[in-house]
């Protein structure tokens, strides 16, 4: 993770100027890419991990690894897929390290903890989503969020989660059914 920058770091940059640090894009391109994707990616990480602080850390780590990846990208969507793939892997690793299966809803860090009085209704609905998602497996949370919050295609979701498209469809179907039931709908109420 990034540590806080100090004045010593500022002084050292000149001394380190000759060392090779190749990134996949220049600063201007990065700024645009970051502005377009950072908030959405943070929301994804917050939903998958259930923890704001962890989402903050993983966001920066994700962008750093993206910049350092020795890859060439054909398009914006290719870059975005790669970014989400890195984020998914980092969230998975973080979960394995902490041995926590369900999202951590700890005081001060839970993702509904910043609302004001005006946002009470929206916060309550968001809390319902959090509760429902916490009953699902991490991979189910990730695929549902990508599909129905980000509007990602099956190819993109499969790419981000590292699974085959053919395997994704039934998994997504089951996860959506579970989620709909958890949100209070009767999923068997209608016919396809």
């Amino acid at each position, binding site marked *: 993770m990034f540590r806080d920058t100090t004045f010593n770091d500022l002084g050292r940059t000149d001394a380190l100027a000759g060392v090779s640090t190749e990134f996949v894009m220049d*600063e201007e391109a990065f700024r645009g890419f970051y502005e377009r994707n950072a908030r959405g990616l*943070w*929301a994804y990480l917050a939903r998958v991990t259930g923890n704001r602080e962890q989402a903050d850390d993983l966001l*920066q780590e994700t962008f750093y690894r993206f910049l*350092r990846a020795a890859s060439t990208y054909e398009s914006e969507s290719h870059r975005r897929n790669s970014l989400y793939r890195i984020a998914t892997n980092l969230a998975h690793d973080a979960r394995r390290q902490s041995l926590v299966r369900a999202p951590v809803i700890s005081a001060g860090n839970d993702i509904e903890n910043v*609302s004001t009085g005006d946002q009470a209704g929206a916060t309550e609905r968001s809390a319902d989503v*959090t509760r429902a998602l916490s009953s699902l497996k991490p991979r189910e949370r990730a695929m*549902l969020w990508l599909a129905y919050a980000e509007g990602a295609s099956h190819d993109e979701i499969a790419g981000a989660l590292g699974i085959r498209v053919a395997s994704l469809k039934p998994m997504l179907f089951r996860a959506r059914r579970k989620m709909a039931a958890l*949100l209070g709908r009767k999923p068997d109420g209608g016919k396809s």
Partner: protein
Amino acid sequence: MKPLECEFEAEVLGAVLQSRWPEHVDDQLRVHAACCAICSEVASVARAFDGSLEELRASAQVPDASRVWWQAQLRARREAIETAGRPITAVQLVAFACAVGLLGACFGATSTWFQATLKRISSNTAGFDVAAFLTAVSTMFVEHGALVIGLVAVVLLVPTAVYVALARD
């Protein structure tokens, strides 16, 4: 076998993501979603997520792009320096030992004076009297015990002291 997908679900999802659902969509699509389990689930989940996404995006306090870029550069340089200064790895050590062994074997096989010296050492070793050596050692301990203990202590203590001093640095 139950179908996993509906041909209209993408349309329903698009309407929710564009905030057109349910008021600003075709009546036919709304009627279909009401009786289609897949489309009604898609609408239900996507609407729940849509509100949550907006709230999360609004409350997200992501760092400035310039700061992230600059810190990434700093970290990359630090890592590059660490990589450059990293001590040789175990694999490199094994490779070095193999190379030295190979050179030694070539030298031993080709050098005549080395082979002659080796033969002389082996003939001396064959005549080595273990009992006499042990007797000499025990005599030395009895006569110069304090000196031997001092020497052993120095041999053990000096490297330890050097190690501790370097470790502190």
